[in-house]
């Protein structure tokens, strides 16, 4: 069974600073995707960034980037120039793509507070 571990329940960062959220996962498969989702107080789930396991290049989306270490099964999220609107729960997630039955497995989340 695959698992996703987020070891930081809560983090805090000053506005305009950089913060890194950690995620590790466990799988024996080779074809999978990894995601970071953001959940602001509105409760809406918003995709932040995705990474295909077969790609060596780390994904980036504006101020958001990942450090994907496949051998170490690590997938951290870096938020640069943090903004107040980044305050949210962040979930790391994982999905196998080799079967017809597909579902995301989520970590327990990291609550990020951006301080003014």
């Amino acid at each position, binding site marked *: 069974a695959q698992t996703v571990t*987020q070891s930081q*329940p809560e983090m805090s960062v000053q506005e305009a600073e950089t913060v890194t959220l950690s995620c590790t996962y466990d799988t024996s498969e080779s074809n999978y*995707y990894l*995601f970071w989702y953001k959940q602001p107080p509105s*409760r*809406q*789930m918003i*995709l932040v960034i*995705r990474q*295909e396991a077969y790609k060596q290049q780390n994904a980036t989306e504006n101020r958001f980037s990942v450090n994907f270490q496949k051998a170490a099964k690590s997938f951290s999220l870096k938020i640069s120039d943090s903004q107040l609107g980044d305050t949210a729960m962040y*979930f790391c997630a994982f*999905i196998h*793509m080799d079967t*017809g*039955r*597909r*579902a*995301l*497995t*989520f*970590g*327990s*989340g990291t609550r990020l507070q951006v301080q003014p």
Partner: protein
Amino acid sequence: DAGITQSPRHKVTETGTPVTLRCHQTENHRYMYWYRQDPGHGLRLIHYSYGVKDTDKGEVSDGYSVSRSKTEDFLLTLESATSSQTSVYFCAIMRTGGPDGELFFGEGSRLTVL
């Protein structure tokens, strides 16, 4: 907007009563999911569907059943609600032809079992 509607959005019920949550999509995608969200646990998969009448259990399926008699609707039923099923329930879809693996979520349904 992924065209996902959950109903009801809020419900308070009593222990032992049946409850059905509905997820409706407007785009006829194959994969639909029910997750529950609880503090400290993130989102956990209850059941999912990969086609009409095709469903499978997730990691926390005990006490829940699902049905999908048509593509656009995925129903989650608690046959006899318990206080441990107090949670926020999210429906999600995986868009056919969309980015692989990415899920789009409904707005969530908050269920309180007294």
